[in-house]
């Protein structure tokens, strides 16, 4: 390449896939470019023509059509087209027409195939269409984190240590000491001769021995079945390590029996995972439960942000980070409730403490306020009991605020009497929202459709989930209005695949990755999930259950998953960078702060959101009420 052509090379290397191309190949490419100016309206390639070139848009814009004549894509500065025809060494697959006066860099078939042979990244890039490109962007990130590539069965280092449920406490303790394990699986041997294998029914851990047996001074010949934990949370051997971590975080357990079909393969402990992630957020969680007052909790809440940044730097995916942050928030809430009950005495009637919104969805980040509510037992009598629950709610809410979870500006907190009600009232709330839907009211109650019981009688929350799942799918008007609300926020993508920017508080041109990215996505996923009667709360889990119903095609589902993952991870990285720079994290991003890689894939992702919104409008017959 002539050194004087550096202007041309420098433009190429700002854009994928040339940004990752080895220097000598880019130089070779530059030296072999053909430049061509086309006026707006010029047909650049036509169906049936022989493909001889790939094109790079240096300036201007080009429209790509399907053979049917339908518009397929708009290509702007720094993007390529024409590669598919070359790959098939045949005919033009998508005809192209200049939308604006454009300067095109043409790559001859010879150069194209040379690059294809010599640069794997280039080959991958041109072989896949933009949406699949998004997928490879997502999976390339995920490949680099060991938690996401290693399976649980690799953590099992020894034979299962188990005992019959009939053993006595002393014998159980001896087995655990001899075998050097911190948990003992308990098997039921009485299956009446109908099965040839023992059945796993319970687990007992070191901690159980200390807290349940020793502190309560149980006789050593007490059967272990008296204190074992039943209703086990297990994990499949083929699961990824991060799924085990999420399961531990979500349920606050430190041991997981590993199951392979009907067979118990072993137990993995928190320590096994910590070996994979040296400074695990699981540590923080277990630490939370050791703190004795709000002041101590506040002190360790400073670690939350470090934990967040660390996970980002370790290339965790958004599901992991969102779940870990939600798990941490949930643990703070649970510990505060324990401390509150210690202070105020046991509750006069049973209750369930409920998380709402992002915490319930397991999609929490660092900038978050508290959204919570209380479901009280139906025997609740306000005059007798509410003083207690108000005091408890206030203790938790104030404690959370101390720990960095700011008060909810919309007053969706258990301290608000409206959201501190017996189960039957909650049933009425949800029934009314679904059966007599009003757009404005739904806008405000949207957050209640992401709910999760996190403390006490969590079955109350399950009952509400079941109620919603059962009623929502059959109320067409409810779905229509929910969809209409979900269409109020559109992705920040302009006509030419440019970013539509808004002025933020500091008068900078930005777009909001939450309001215009993750929020519209989780909104529309929620509606499809409600329509198909799913009880899942997490957006990725919701996509899985939608997938079982054929409501959305498999391909579109994967696109949604990839778009959510990519927008979320860009948002997460943006916040982590702010934290590392000592700034207050937010959701406003300037395009120039993104890498060309991020810019290009964000556009793909926003396009997916936009298409999904079109489908939502069509599917539920909704027009947006207003644009914000």
């Amino acid at each position, binding site marked *: 390449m002539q050194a004087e052509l550096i202007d041309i090379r420098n433009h190429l290397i700002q854009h994928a896939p040339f940004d990752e191309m080895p220097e000598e190949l880019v130089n070779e490419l530059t*030296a072999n470019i*053909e*430049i061509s100016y086309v006026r707006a309206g010029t047909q650049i390639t036509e169906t049936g023509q022989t493909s001889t070139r790939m094109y790079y848009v240096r300036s201007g814009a080009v429209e790509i059509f399907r053979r049917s004549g339908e518009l397929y894509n708009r290509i702007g500065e720094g993007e390529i087209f024409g590669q598919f025809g070359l790959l098939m060494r045949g005919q033009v697959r998508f005809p192209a027409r200049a939308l604006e006066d454009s300067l095109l860099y043409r790559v001859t078939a010879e150069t194209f195939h040379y690059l294809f042979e010599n640069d794997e990244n280039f080959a991958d890039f041109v072989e896949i269409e933009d949406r699949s490109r998004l997928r490879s962007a997502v999976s390339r990130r995920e490949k680099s984190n060991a938690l996401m590539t290693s399976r649980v069965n690799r953590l099992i280092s020894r034979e299962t240590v188990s005992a019959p449920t009939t053993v006595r406490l002393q014998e159980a303790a001896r087995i655990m000491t001899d075998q050097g394990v911190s948990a003992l699986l308990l098997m039921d041997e009485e299956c009446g001769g109908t099965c040839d294998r023992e059945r796993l029914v319970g687990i007992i851990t070191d901690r159980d021995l200390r807290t349940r047996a020793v502190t309560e001074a149980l006789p050593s010949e007490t059967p272990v079945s008296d204190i074992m934990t039943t209703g086990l949370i297990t994990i499949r051997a083929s699961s990824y390590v991060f799924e085990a971590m999420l399961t531990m975080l979500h349920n606050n357990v430190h041991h997981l029996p590993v199951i392979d079909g009907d067979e118990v393969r072993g137990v993995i402990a928190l320590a096994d995972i910590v070996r994979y992630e040296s400074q695990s957020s699981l540590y923080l969680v277990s630490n939370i439960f050791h703190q004795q007052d709000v002041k101590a909790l506040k002190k360790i809440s400073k670690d939350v942000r470090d934990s967040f940044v660390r996970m980002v730097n370790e290339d965790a995916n958004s599901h992991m980070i969102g779940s870990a942050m939600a798990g941490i928030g949930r643990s703070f809430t649970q510990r505060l409730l324990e401390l509150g009950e210690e202070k105020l005495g046991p509750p006069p009637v049973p209750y369930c403490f409920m998380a709402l919104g992002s915490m319930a969805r397991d999609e929490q980040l660092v900038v978050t306020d508290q959204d919570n509510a209380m479901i009280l037992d139906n025997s609740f009598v306000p005059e007798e009991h509410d003083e207690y629950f108000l005091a408890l709610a206030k203790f938790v809410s104030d404690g959370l605020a101390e720990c960095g979870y700011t008060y909810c500006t919309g007053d969706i907190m258990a301290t608000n009497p409206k959201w501190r009600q017996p189960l039957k009232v909650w049933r009425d709330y949800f029934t009314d929202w679904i059966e007599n839907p009003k757009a404005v009211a739904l806008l405000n109650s949207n957050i209640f459709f992401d709910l999760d019981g996190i403390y006490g009688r969590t079955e109350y929350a399950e009952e509400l989930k079941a109620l919603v799942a059962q009623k929502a799918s059959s109320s067409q008007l409810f779905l229509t209005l929910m969809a209409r609300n979900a269409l109020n926020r559109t992705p920040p993508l302009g006509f030419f695949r440019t970013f539509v920017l808004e002025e933020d508080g500091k008068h900078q041109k930005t777009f909001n990755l939450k309001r215009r990215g993750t929020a519209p996505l989780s909104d529309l996923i929620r509606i499809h999930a409600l329509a198909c009667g799913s009880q899942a709360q997490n957006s990725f889990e919701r996509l899985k259950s939608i997938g079982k119903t054929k409501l959305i095609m498999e391909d579109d589902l994967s696109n949604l998953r990839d778009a959510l993952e990519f927008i979320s991870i860009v948002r997460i990285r943006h916040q982590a960078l702010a934290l590392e720079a000592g700034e207050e994290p937010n959701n406003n991003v300037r395009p120039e702060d993104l890498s060309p890689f991020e810019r290009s894939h964000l556009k793909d992702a926003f396009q997916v959101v936009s298409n999904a919104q079109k489908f939502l409008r069509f599917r539920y017959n909704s027009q947006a009420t207003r644009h914000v």
Partner: protein
Amino acid sequence: MSDNQSLPDAVNTLPWPEQYQALSESAKAPVLKAFYEAGCVSEDTAISEVPMVALDFETTGLEADAHSIVSIGLVPFTMDAILLNQAKHWIVRPRLPLHQVSVTFHGITHADISDAPDLSEILEDVFASLNGRIVVVHFRHIERPFLNVALQYRLNEGIRFPLIDTMAIEAHLHPNRQPSFFKKLAGEKPTSIRLGDSRKRYGLPHYAAHNALVDAIATAELLQAQIQHHFSPETPVGDLWL
């Protein structure tokens, strides 16, 4: 353009293909002989059929008789494509000292040219790209007169050829570049026909670097844009060359 004194005046009025033929017989230097022998398209050839070469010199000043060529950039092209794999760039040693003013403009320094060849050493390479092509420049009063003088000095004979001037095309398109008195009062600026400003009118990108090759490429792109906006691929080359 300078007249070749050894030729009868009649030759100068012939159509270009015939002139080239006559000149190929009278030229003595092999490079010039080969240049004319490669021929010239007839004036009624459609511009889309014409092989062209965009040419740009960086010089020590504006006077062909007083200043020298410092660098040469060229790129062969057609209406369809500008071929970077045939792009060339040379730095040459000027006969006259570099002025500080021109150094700041084209960025070529004394160190660059101390080892550079004299133009005579690269003439064959330069002409290999010019032969059989119509030269395209932006501002016709540099490349043709400077080349003519340089060849007179080194080969003792000058050169004649038609060329297309993208600046002349812009001047033709914008005959009234000075805004009226009232428009001037209203803040309207005169229309600039400089290379960068002309390119802007066609949505062509800004190039940061200034060297002879980038300017040659920029000129080639500009001509492609001008033809598509104001002429047609069928426009005879005779309507465009000067």
